[in-house]
């Protein structure tokens, strides 16, 4: 079943993107961005998995020659989580401002730019 994680990642990406495009509520839109971000985490971890591999920690009972899963993608995923958390924080701050000042969180109703 090694194809399954990649299919899950692709599905999450597409569903998240569809949610962002058709959203009528800013918080919902940001959560759909979160779903898209989750798809990248699933993809990264799937890339690093090795069948039968252990967690990449060398102890007295786990010699360095055993088969480990890839630790680099785990580091990438953690970095990614932090980066995306920052983005979500900024977007939520903008949403709070939108609600506070204009009383609406509908992205379509915010349209005022032209010229």
């Amino acid at each position, binding site marked *: 079943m090694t194809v399954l994680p990649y299919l899950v*990642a692709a599905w999450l*990406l597409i569903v998240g*993107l569809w949610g*962002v495009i058709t959203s009528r509520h*800013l918080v919902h*839109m940001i959560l759909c*961005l979160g779903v*898209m*971000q989750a*798809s*990248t985490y699933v*993809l*990264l971890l799937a*890339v690093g998995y090795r069948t039968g591999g252990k967690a990449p920690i060398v102890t007295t009972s786990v010699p360095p020659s055993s088969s480990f899963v890839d630790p*680099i*993608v785990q580091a*990438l995923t953690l*970095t*990614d989580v932090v*980066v995306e958390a*920052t*983005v979500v924080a*900024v*977007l939520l701050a*903008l*949403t709070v*401002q*939108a609600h506070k*000042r*204009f009383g609406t969180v509908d*992205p379509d109703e*915010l*349209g*005022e*730019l032209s*010229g």
Partner: protein
Amino acid sequence: MAVAALSVLVPILAGGVLALTSSVERRRVAAVVAVAAVGASAVLLAILLARAGRDGRLVYWWGDWAPRGRVLGIDFAIDGLGAGLALFVAVLAVPALVMAGYAIRASAQLFHGACLVFVAAMIGYCLTGDLFNLFVFFELMSVAAYVLVGYEVRGRAPLEGALTFAVTNTVGSILLLFGIGLVYGEAGSLNMAQIGQALEASGASAVVCVAFALISVGLLVKAAIVPFHFWTADAYGVAPTPVLILLGGVFSELGLYGFARVFWTVFEPALAAHHGTLLAIFVALGLVTGVLGAAMALAQHHLKRMLGFVVI
């Protein structure tokens, strides 16, 4: 080679210090500190450019993780183009920050802090030779840009412009990360030069093509190439003017630089067979972008939006 590290660290540390002490609101001091940090960074980058011109490509390994057989560390691969563009960013930031000292009244210290982080991230982006490091700096400069563009958040237009900008660019960066994950799975390394070598062996497989498409989309959204240009006019129309100097001067150009760097270093060996087709596609996109940008710019009445279309 501490020069390379310092050129990124000095603005980031200065920005951090300004943000930490932002409750003590000293507008003049903050502006002076910001201009000094960026000026110092510009001097360091000029030194780097001179050295790169003399010695060819300079490579600086962070934490001394030089490769022993396999590449495990993160490096700054500094050649003339990267150092030159980073120097341009730093030099452009000086008048932008001077102007911000006069133009920004509310929460000026935080503004200067965010600007410094923005400039530092752009410099790091130009200098790096590691694909994931490129992504991290890309995200950092994007987030700083979202904050800076939406700075005058009291008006309706800046809020909407910042939201459009943030959501489109975030979608682009998620696609970029997806592509990077696929490339790592295929090549087993994150160092751009090593990926190029590894992918040359595997050729233009389906995974490589899909990864290239995703990474291109992510970077071209930043570069405001048609059909990913819709965020540009909205974002440029509402940004405060000091931010506009930096945004219009370098932000989209960095998207193109990243795209060129990734294409030539990582993908060109693998996709060499299709070189002619790819060249035709990108030239066509560039032409359409140029024509569309010029036509829309002529139709604008608002100066900042016109600038946005000129950048396209």
